[in-house]
């Protein structure tokens, strides 16, 4: 937890970012599921006619 001894040469923020579990299969599976949802969203967004300004909040009953 402490970052102020001889073994630790990286600043705290970098260490947090290095916490990303690159080799963990469960983490990667979970990430892939989230990315799949993101990619689905982006494809559908691309296919919509542009009738609203970018970034506008859509009402929650939109997806009927």
């Amino acid at each position, binding site marked *: 937890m402490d970052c102020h001894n001889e073994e630790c040469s990286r600043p705290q923020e970098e260490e947090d970012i290095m916490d990303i*579990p690159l080799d963990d299969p469960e983490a990667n599976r*979970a990430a892939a599921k989230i990315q799949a949802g993101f990619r689905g969203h982006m494809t559908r967004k691309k296919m919509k006619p542009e009738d609203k300004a970018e970034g506008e909040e859509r009402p929650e009953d939109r997806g009927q």
Partner: protein
Amino acid sequence: LIAHYQSLPQAASFTQAASFTPVNYREAFGLFDRVGDNKVAYNQVADIMRALGQNPTNKEVNRLLGMPSADDMTAKRVEFEGFLPMLQTIINSPNKAGYDDYVEGLRVFDKEGNGTVMGAELRIVLSTLGEKMSADEIDALMAGQEDENGCVNYETFVKHIMSV
């Protein structure tokens, strides 16, 4: 962190209405045929499924296509009758992610427990884990989502994702 990923809940399936106008799957499929042979290229299959409201992983699609090579993806084409069973497999797949899955997945990065994640950290995760996203994809995804401090309210973000 790892323990959290292992317990990602398996939400009941959710369906999402496609928000573009074709009346049926065949019509949607036809829109993607740019050659006029009533087929689409392998590399279009995932996008057609997404356009139809599904969220397949690239791995799932590759499996359905028989593990095609990069050349196959551009050169091989599939007709609607071949595409439909693939689509149905995705539609019927269990363990589809819903609102709670996305929120809980992102909550892992909410260090202060205040409902936000650092946009920069999210970008790193999306580009280094899972099915890595490109910088362009990430920019498109996150456009307008970060506040002036570079933070993302992830519940709002997920609602936005699920609204289309």
